[in-house]
Structure formats: C-alpha cells, structure tokens
C-alpha cells in the first residue's frame, strides 16, 4: 500500500495546512510585493540555523543547527516553493528580526536563547490565531464552491489566505530535521532494515519512534 501512502509520509502536516509538505502550494494570493532580496546569504543561513535550533534545540540528541537545517531550508524555498511563498519567506526573515527588536530591544542573532524562545512562543501563538482565520476562510470558500459547480480536481489544495512566514519556518525546521541524517538517527530510532514485522509490541513513554528509509 505504500504507493498510496507515500505522500502522507513525506508530507509535513504539522500546521494543518501543508506548506511545501506535499510540495503543492496552489492558490495563494499574491501578497503586497515589497523589495526583498530573493537570494539567500550566508548570514541568512546562520539566522535560519538559529531559528531552527530554537524550535528543535540540542539536547541529549543533535539539534537542528547540527543537522544543517538552515541550509536545507534555503534549498527547499528556492526549489519547491512558489514565488508567492518565497516572497513570504524572505520577508519573514526581516519580520521576525523586527519582532525580536520590538520584544527584546535587539535583533534575533544578538538575542539570548531564552529571549529567542520567548519570541518564537509568542509568534507561534500569533500563527495559531492566523490558522484559525485561514481555516474559516477555507471553509467559506469551499461552501461557496459547493453552491456553484463541482470543484475542479486540480484545485483541491487551493486556499484563500496566504501562508504565515512562521508556519513555513516551523514546518521546514521539523521536516528538515527529521529527514536529516542527524535528526533521523539521533532524534528517532533509525532502523532501515527491520527484517521482520512484529504486529504488537510493548511501548513505554520515552521510547522514540522507529523510522526507516521512507
């Protein structure tokens, strides 16, 4: 059954809305286009590493930075995102730094781990609100759609509101981490060749998930 399940497994569905997760981002409205560079600098990559590290920090296992998540994010944004989402992402880097300035009086790179954590928790709350609105809009659009004609099959994933930059950052951090060598081998129990199927085994809290090559 893997052929039917493949997408489900590679999709990052942490936010309910899949961003670049099934790599099908259609129907995003074009946001106001300001002047933002669409090329990532090494500074950007360092910044993204620190954001990802704040989301998934080093503990007894590797964190996102050690897993190279910052650079991976730039590859995904460059190659897999639509122009609209690239724009949101690039602006998001600036917006997040500004939000840090506002909350802590200095930019993200100068912030302490505690300050970074407090900032991202607050931005994540903002995203939760935003996602509610997004879901409502989507429901509304779908109802409208139903009253009209049948929905075109090409357009199932269309959503009426653009994505929030922190949805993107968080999902890419998680996807990048758990599909990286460090994340998968340290953050999960990496067993590429189980050799057998045991349909029922005991589990105790704290045991990590098994993960293979998918």
């Amino acid at each position, binding site marked *: *059954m*893997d*052929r*039917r399940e*493949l997408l489900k497994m*590679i999709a*990052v*569905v*942490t936010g*309910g809305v899949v961003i670049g997760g099934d*790599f*099908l981002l259609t129907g995003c409205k074009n946001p106001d286009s300001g002047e933002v560079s669409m090329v990532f600098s090494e500074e950007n990559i360092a910044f993204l590493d620190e954001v990802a590290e*704040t*989301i*998934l*920090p080093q*503990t007894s*296992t590797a964190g996102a930075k050690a897993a190279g998540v910052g650079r991976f994010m730039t*590859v*995904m944004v460059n*190659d*897999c*995102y*639509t122009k609209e989402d690239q724009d949101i992402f690039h602006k998001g880097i600036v917006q997040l730094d500004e939000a840090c300035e506002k909350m802590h009086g200095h930019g993200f790179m100068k912030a302490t781990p505690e300050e970074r*954590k407090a900032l*991202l*928790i607050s931005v*994540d*709350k903002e995203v939760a609100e935003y996602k509610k609105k997004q879901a409502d809009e989507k429901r509304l659009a779908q109802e409208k759609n139903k009253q009209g004609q049948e*929905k075109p*099959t090409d357009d*199932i994933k269309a959503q009426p509101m653009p994505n929030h930059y922190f949805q993107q950052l968080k999902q890419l951090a998680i*996807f990048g981490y*758990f*599909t*990286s060598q460090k994340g*998968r081998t340290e*953050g*999960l129990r990496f067993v*590429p*060749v*189980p*050799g*057998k*199927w*045991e*349909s*029922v*085994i*005991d*589990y*105790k809290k*704290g*045991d*990590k*998930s*098994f993960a*293979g*090559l*998918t």
Partner: protein
Amino acid sequence: MADNTFDAIVVGSGISGGWAAKELTERGLKVLMLDRGFDIKHKVDYADSNKPPWEYPHRGGRTQKMIEEYPVLKRDYPLNERNLSWWCSDQDHPYVEKKPFGWFRGYHVGGRSLMWGRQSYRWSDLDFEANAKDGIAIDWPIRYKDIAPWYDHVETFAGISGSLEGLPHLPDGKFLPPMAMNIVEQDVAKRIKEHYNNQRWMFIGRSANLTAKIPGRDSACQFRNICSNGCPFGAYFSTQSSTLPAAEKTGNLTLRPWSICTEVIYDKDTKKAKGVRVLDAENNQTYEYYSKVVFLCASSLNSAWILMRSATNIWPEGLGSSSGELGHNVMDHHLKIGASGDVDGYEDKYYYGYRPNGVYVPRYRNLPGGEKRNYLRGFGYQGGASRESWTRLVAEYSIGAEFKDALSEPGKWTMGIGGFGEMLPYHDNKITISKEKKDKWGLPVLEFDVEFKENEKNMRIDIMNDAKEMLEAAGVKNVNAYDNGCEPGWGIHEMGTARMGKDPKTSVLNSNNQVWDCKNLFVTDGACMTSASCVNPSLSYMALTARAVDFAVKELKKQNL
C-alpha cells in the same frame, strides 16, 4: 531460425508481458519480448532502493520545476523525487484529454510491475456474472471455475501473502502466511464484524510480498516498505524479481528494450499476424520481427493503440475493430474518498517494522440477497491503523526541547480507510488516435474521452458515508470523511478497450483472449477486461495471461494457429 524470427513475440514486459514470456519460454517456445523503454536490471539498477531521505536534495519532495515538467504526474503521488525516472516523461509521451484522464505510465523493462501497490485479490462470479445479471454491456465469456486453477498457478509462483477468510465473493487462494494486523486493526476488525453481524469484514490485505522464502527467490520481505524503489531483496513480485529470471533460465528468451511496437503485421491471405513492426526508440530505425503467435501486453490503452494502427487497409479503425468496440469501454477504479479518525488508548502498544500492506474491507454492498442501493456494483476499502509520527501537530508545546522530545516519540493512534469503487463499462468512454498531435517519434498519440457517470457518483456517497459510519461503529473518534475528487486514471487500474466476449459482433477477444479477427494474436493485459470489479486487477491479468498461453501453445501444437 533467422535472427528476426521467433516462435512468439510478447509486446510489453510488465506484469502481463512478464508472465507471457515465462509461460511461453517454459513451454519451449523461442520468445522475443519487447519493451518500448530502457532496461532496468534486477537489483543492479535500483538506484534508490537503499537511499535514506537525506541523500535526496529535497528529501523526496517535489520541486516547482518537476511540477512544470510533469503536468500529468503532478496530479497524484507519483511525482516526487524518489524514483522519478521510473514514471515516464509527460513531455516525451503526450496525449490529448477531451476530458480529464490521469495516465500514469512506466515505460521501461518491467513496466509498472516495479512500482505497483502489490494488492492481489481473486475476482469471483460476483464479477464475472455481473454484466449478464445487470444487463450491462456484454457477458463475460468465462466464469470463476475457468480461471480458478490459473489463480492457483500464479499465486504459487508470484508469492501472495494473505489469510483464508471463506468469502465466496473474494475467494481464498494459495497464500503464504498472512502479515498480522496491529493491535488497533485487530480490535477495529472485531468491532466491525460484531456491529454488522458478520456481514462486513476487515482483514489483512493480500499482498505480493513474500512472507516466506519460496523457490526461485532469494529472500523474504524485510519490512522496509519502500518496495516501489525496487527491492534489493527481490521480495515482492515484479517482472525482474520473478517472471523474467524464470524466462531467462530457459535460454529461450530474447529481450529487446527501446522497442516501440507500432503495429501488428497482418497477413490478409492467411488472416493471421505475421509479426510486428518496431520503431527503435533510440536510433529511430524500423525493424520487423516475425513469429507464429503474438501476445499484446503493452498495457490496456497502449495495446489498443497498437491494434488501432494495425491492418487499417482492411479495417480503417484497426485490427479487432470489426465489432466497433475497440478502444471503447475504458474503465478504472474511482478512489480518493474515505474517512479517518483517532483511536483512544493503546498508548502502551506499538509495532516493529514497516508493513508494506494494509487492511482490506471487501465489498459488502449489493451482494446477492442484500439490500439494493441506488447504484450497481460496489466498492472495497484499503486502509490501516498506525501511531502518528513526527509529522503530527503537537498541541502541548510550541517549540523547544519538550517539543522536540514529543515529536521524537510516537503519537496517538489513528485509523483510516479509503475506497476503491467499481466503474461500469460505458461504450462512449473511449480512446481514439489523434489526427493532429504526435509524439517526438512522429507517432500519433491517444485522445481520451472518458468520464465517471451517475452510477459512480451515486456510489461515492455510500463510500464516504459508510467509511465514517463503520469507523465510528468501531469506536474511532473525531472521524473525518472526505471526498477529494477523482479523475479516471488515478486508480492506475486502466481496463477495457479490447474486451473479451462470446460474440465477435460485440467483443474484440474471445474467451481465450484471442482476437476474433486474427486468431494467432492474443491480448492479455487490462485491455481484455469486460467489467472492472472493485477488486485490484493485476492478479487477474497474471492468471488470464497464463491461461491464454496454455491455450495458445496447445493450439499451436494442434496446428490450429
């Protein structure tokens, strides 16, 4: 024998072609097997079979460039970074959609036998009698008893794992030990059985993955569940793992990749096929090959395409078109519909290994003696239960060490089932050869005029609502029912276009898959199907192919061909 002359030619090397080659060569015939695409050597050419996600630049995802380059493939799961070269290029292989049709093809040796879902079920007289009982299309010329011994034969050789359930409409077979259901699936299955008084069933899927070692194969399944990248253990059925080595072992097989069969050469004096004409896809040269018997196993729609281009000086619509049915009655299964939800409890249970198989709910609607619905035929479900992984939403923590720890552990159990519905054969669902559009070899492409109709649409309402009702009856919580919409083709179970029948006036093939108008020409892939069932069709192609070969060789010996 001249080097362009064989006893038999097999066009196509997928599930059906591989079986034809094996059965023909094992009966001592010298066989040429053609495939239009590149060669893939077993194990050696499975580049992605051991590749971890971090070795893919986009970790297995799809890029905007891929989306642009694959306007068809992008419509469903096949478009991703893993193994993309095994799905044919949409640019090189265009077709015309008068109505939407997603055609997902594998143009290489082994065809889609390398990427298939491996679900393997027998059809029954519920299927073979359906058209006659409903007064739909035409009657199948065979019944279950005709194909049953051939199911035995192909199951034993291919290696199908499954459980014996005793259901007359989904017959048991020669199975390897079943894979087990996990703890949640076991309990859901029990509750469904109880709730519906043993009139609905859920059990482990029947799958062409080896749960035990069998002769001729190296290894049993290692439970990695990345079968469609090619298995380095050779533990699922494919042409490469199973039928091709058997055919090669006889010393009677010649395999020719890069060979686009452009037509069957028909001799109007003998009323027989002389052989085939081949366009070499690499050097654009044309070659002719001759044989006593020809098997078309090029996939449902491409076998019809070849017939439509053959003997047009006698029949303008092609060889086998005298009935007016060639290219008609295109069928598929409809899907992308079902329900899923959460399962409370079982936090102290888990599973080990990645099972390349799920659970199956066989058809229960419109069975003999049951309540009649507002549509004909029925549907089955495939699904499963699992614990959520790192891809889930964690509500308790937004970021940080606790969040990371939570994602590292399995989450709650979820259970989902998705429907596979039968599509009726409609004469006006058809493919034709385009008068305008050509591919890069200058060959005219197919035009699709295929749609789901009222019967399928009515059935979908039941598929969605029943899924929700059954899961809720089994104690699944927060059940979400969905209908994501479906185009014909998305089931990747194309059938019809050269159906079997009892009467040359209404069918293309007879009960032995022989073209009525050309008795040494056989079509044994999905093109031959007279109805679609709701049951996965590949095992039936294997059985029908083996049966037709047996008949053909006997006829050859009697000098009837």
